[in-house]
């Protein structure tokens, strides 16, 4: 019942308006939208209700049709769930009663004029527009667990980007040196306008117009950015085996405290066709190109970071909704907790790259390898500060981060005969990231998602987004300390528990064709990348996980076992001063006290995600995935004779068909905080989708 639909119409045309003057225009219109379901860490989320229901309660009440009301509504109209209306929503209630719907209308196009007043000179002007409106509605029915009084959220976004580019190009031949010059001017504007209403306290059931809400709050905001810049490029080639490109750009942006602040970025790149330089003419090595480049790119601060404002007042808490304004009919404002900085400078990233491209064996084997090192400086960071200053964060140019790595691409035409062709390719990327410096006096910045006990941070000297969490008390050798009852001892100090960045990523493709049939396959491989399996930690508490029935070592529910530490592999050691039943000091000895596999250890003890440490729930998120597999049949010209068709092909492909992973949750390719810059958390996220796509292409 989760749906998403999209329709696109596109028109493109061009014409010669006058001698030397050509005009092109293109316009596309897209309408998309759907009906979607709540997920993630909230009481009304689908997965919380689904997984936390004990197996003895049937959420579907025996019916097959997911829209059948008898699954989720009692005869008296109240919600039917395993806790008689408290706890979490019945997933059937969530699907049927609490949808998110959206409708997006987008216009996207450009118009371009090309004028060639003289030989070798081309002047162009291009205006591009991308504009869309996004209207959304989220309803929570009366009786839903996150808001028992019901709520409606109506939001409308009007978003646009406009771009002007005026360029002049000139090419010249100076003997063996070919030269191309470009000079240009660019102006870009982005607008994001938002109006939203939130209503709670619904009265009429199943009626979701804002007039039905006893309490209504409205919001509006505008985020915008304007940039203009001048740029130039000079490209030289010598005898068609050496190429040199030099560029420079100077921008100004509206988000600086002083709009006259320039952002300057130069770059240089050189490539040499080695087979020409070294005069290699061979069937084994057909082509070799060496490239080297160095580029600096700058960017401007985010909107509203150049000043300190007052916000509409609200008080939030991690435990309750809190309070918001207007409050009892009174307006309230509060100084923002973020200190703006009118003296921010641009951020700069310098990338140095070295690459080699080879074509071998009569162009049947190609290889491309690139080494890169990228250093970002003066990164604009909302540095957290101690609350006693009156603020909780402050914008500064502070961070330095380095990314370095290698990218490799190989492609081989294995078979190339008249009827049968087979091609295979591989890509490999390995990136290492280090946060070299945050800000003076700041060693740690927390990233968006996170609770006490499981969160993600930027830490000096470590990779971006290191996972932090609470752990067991450990001795100097890293062994867990246990108490006399055989349970590990909890430590509330958070430590590094994992790194969500992968060791490497690899893709393997294969294309084959036989006569009119063609076949393709894409494998996606990720090695490394830790994930916090918060879902498993929570389900241990409820006794609803597979392990609560039978542990991986075979211990059944109700049987006893000796606790085992997943980090060290041993069972821990008694803490100093631990006394056994006879009063003897067993401190320092290895743990040999059995504990029981039932609620006393999980909900009543420290072995669940809610009552104990989060480190045991960090898992390896590596995967091998068959991303795409498909087959297509192309009709021959003979078969199409007599029809008006010039070409016709039919195909079917499967997406996300197979997943192999040691991760014990739904899918390691998941992210609790959505499309943000944090990753590595699974807390009742939805599984990924698998799809079948049918394809028909006809030429007239």
């Amino acid at each position: 019942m989760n749906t998403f639909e999209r329709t696109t119409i596109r028109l493109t045309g061009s014409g010669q308006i006058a001698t030397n003057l050509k005009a092109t225009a293109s316009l596309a219109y897209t309408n998309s939208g759907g009906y979607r379901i709540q997920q993630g860490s909230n009481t009304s989320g689908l997965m919380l209700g689904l997984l936390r229901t004990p197996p003895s309660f049937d959420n579907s009440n025996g019916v097959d049709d997911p829209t059948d009301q008898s699954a989720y509504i009692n005869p008296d109209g109240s919600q039917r769930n395993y806790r008689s209306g408290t706890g979490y929503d019945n997933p059937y209630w969530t699907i049927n009663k609490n949808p998110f719907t959206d409708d997006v209308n987008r216009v996207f196009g450009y118009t371009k004029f090309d004028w060639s007043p003289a030989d070798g000179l081309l002047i162009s002007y291009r205006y591009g527009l991308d504009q869309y409106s996004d209207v959304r509605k989220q309803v929570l029915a009366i009786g839903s667990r996150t808001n028992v009084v019901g709520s409606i959220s109506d939001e409308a976004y009007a978003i646009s980007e406009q771009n002007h580019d005026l360029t002049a190009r000139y090419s010249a031949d100076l003997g063996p040196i070919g030269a191309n010059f470009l000079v240009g001017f660019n102006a870009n504007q982005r607008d994001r306008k938002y109006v939203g209403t939130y209503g709670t306290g619904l009265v009429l059931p199943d009626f979701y117009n804002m007039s039905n809400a006893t309490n209504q709050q409205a919001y509006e905001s505008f985020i915008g950015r304007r940039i203009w810049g001048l740029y130039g490029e000079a490209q030289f080639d010598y005898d068609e085996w050496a190429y040199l490109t030099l560029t420079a750009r100077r921008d100004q942006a509206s988000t600086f405290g002083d709009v006259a602040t320039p952002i300057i970025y130069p770059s240089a790149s050189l490539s040499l066709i080695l087979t020409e330089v070294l005069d290699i003419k061979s069937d084994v090595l057909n082509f070799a190109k060496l490239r080297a480049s160095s580029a600096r790119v700058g960017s401007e601060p985010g909107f509203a970071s150049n000043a300190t404002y007052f916000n509409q007042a609200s008080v939030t808490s991690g435990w309750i909704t809190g309070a918001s304004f207007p409050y009892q009919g009174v307006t309230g404002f509060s100084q923002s907790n973020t200190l703006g900085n009118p003296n921010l400078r641009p951020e700069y990233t310098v990338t140095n790259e070295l690459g080699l491209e080879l074509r071998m064996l009569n162009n049947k084997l190609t290889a491309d390898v690139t080494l890169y090192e990228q250093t970002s400086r003066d990164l604009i960071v909302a540095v957290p500060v101690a609350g006693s200053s009156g603020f909780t964060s402050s914008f500064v140019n502070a961070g330095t981060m380095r990314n370095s790595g290698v990218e490799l691409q190989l492609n081989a035409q294995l078979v190339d005969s008249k009827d049968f062709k087979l091609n295979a390719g591989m890509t490999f990327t390995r990136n290492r990231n280090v946060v070299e410096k945050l800000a003076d006096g700041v060693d740690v910045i927390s990233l968006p998602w996170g609770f006490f006990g499981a969160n993600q941070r930027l830490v000096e000297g470590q990779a971006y987004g290191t996972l932090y969490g609470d752990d067991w008390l450990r001795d100097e050798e890293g062994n867990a300390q246990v108490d006399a009852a055989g349970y590990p001892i909890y430590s509330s100090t958070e430590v590094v528990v994992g790194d969500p960045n992968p060791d490497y990523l690899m893709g393997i493709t294969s294309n084959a064709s036989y006569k009119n049939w063609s076949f393709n396959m894409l494998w996606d491989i990720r090695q490394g990348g830790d994930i916090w399996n918060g879902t498993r930690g929570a389900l241990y508490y409820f006794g609803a996980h597979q392990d609560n029935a039978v542990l991986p070592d075979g211990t059944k529910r109700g049987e006893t076992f000796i606790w085992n530490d997943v980090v060290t592999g041993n069972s821990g050691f008694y803490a100093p001063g631990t006394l056994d039943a006879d009063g003897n000091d067993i401190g320092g000895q290895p743990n040999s006290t059995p504990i029981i596999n039932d609620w006393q250890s999980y909900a009543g003890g420290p072995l669940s995600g809610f009552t104990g440490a989060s480190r045991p729930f960090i898992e390896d998120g590596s995967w091998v995935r068959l991303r795409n597999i498909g087959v297509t049949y192309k009709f021959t010209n003979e078969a199409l004779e007599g029809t008006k068709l010039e070409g016709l092909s039919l195909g079917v492909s499967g997406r996300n068909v197979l997943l192999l992973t040691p991760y014990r949750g739904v899918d390691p390719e998941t992210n609790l905080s959505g499309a943000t810059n944090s990753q590595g958390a699974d807390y009742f996220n939805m599984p990924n989708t698998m799809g079948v796509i049918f394809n028909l292409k006809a030429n007239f």
Partner: protein
Amino acid sequence: MKFNNIAIIALTGIALSACSDAWLEEYKLDQNRPSDVTMEVLLPSAQVNYGITQGDVLPRLTSIFMQQMTGTDRQSLAHNTYSVIGEGDFNTPWNNSYAGGLYDLNIIITKAEELGAPAYAGIAKITTAMYLGLLTDHFGDIPFEEAFQGATDLTAKFDSQESIYAAIQTLLDDGKANLLEPSNLAPSGDDLIHGGDLIAWGSTADALKARYLNHLSKTSLYDADAVIAACDDALAGSSYAALGFDASLNQNPWWQFLNERQGYITQFGTMYDMMEANVDPRIAFYRSADSTDMPFFAAATAPLAIVTPFETMFIKAEALIRKGDPAAARLVLEDAVESNMMWLGVDPSDIASYVAAMSATTDLELIMTEKYYAMFTSSEVWTDWRRTGFPALTAPSGAILSDIPRRLPYPENEYLYNSANVPMPIDASPDEKFGVSGSYKLWWDM
């Protein structure tokens, strides 16, 4: 000819750039948020902020410590044995106070001086004293003198609790004086607590003076006469101060917790055992028949009491007992119990029978035990227990600390971003962090 064209383009570019600084300036500031506001929008914001801070995580934890309710699910279950409580839990109340309410009150005081509006300054100073009292009774030494410096000083030093207590009394006295001065501007509807009634604010300030003077009972600075005088001033006026809530949005924080986190806390424990033994008529108001709900304190529109006359009466009774006058203390004690029960809505005949059945010996234990019942849902109960040891409570079996906590650890963000100034080291033992042993107990608890 071609160079002429390049020149035209270059000149066009330069000309376009010359008028573009104005084009960029139009988008520089956020037009949807003000850079400066009036006191009348800052005051309600600070008051609601205080109410939520007083009614959210702090009293829930201290009520569990004082065994007035029991955690029965998730993290609250662990809280019974003082487990899964760490520095990270206190960032929110601390930051909401310092970067939210207290900072806004600071702005009000500055503006009030500029605009000649001492009415606003008075209320802001009294509310600042309320915040400081709440924070110092939980965390001990806290920043104040160097706080709220923003970009000038991002790392404030922590002032001793003794100096904070002195600052509280100064703020209350200065605030009371401000309220009597003529003022160009005065709050009305924007004052969510007293609706602009400056006389009521004066009485509330007296009640707060009494409370914080009384907290010094274990120190040599305790002055029973000063306490009694402040109580009398407060009781002579209408000192009752509370924050109100609505039914479908901005509900009472206890209601929010019991509804959004159902089952985390259930109403049973040592307090209820003691009340049942006394056949206390308040039980039906404190908990529902199935013990899951708190009918009086967790109704959606239940007000959050900040200062009540019965609290002041209990303080006066305690001061009288300390002066050695049990007869006078008895009269005030009975008034306090009656006032509390009438506020709850207990039937007058039940009130009379309860008071008649109270123990005949008027001593500190009786007064503090009755106050323990009456101040339910306030973290004042924890302060009173730390000062007097009444009622006698023992830590539950399985507790991960050696005894009941006597302070809270400092918030994690101060350790991360102001570590040089935090008085307690991050690697202190759990017993030390919670003030059970070691040198980090509160100054007035030594």
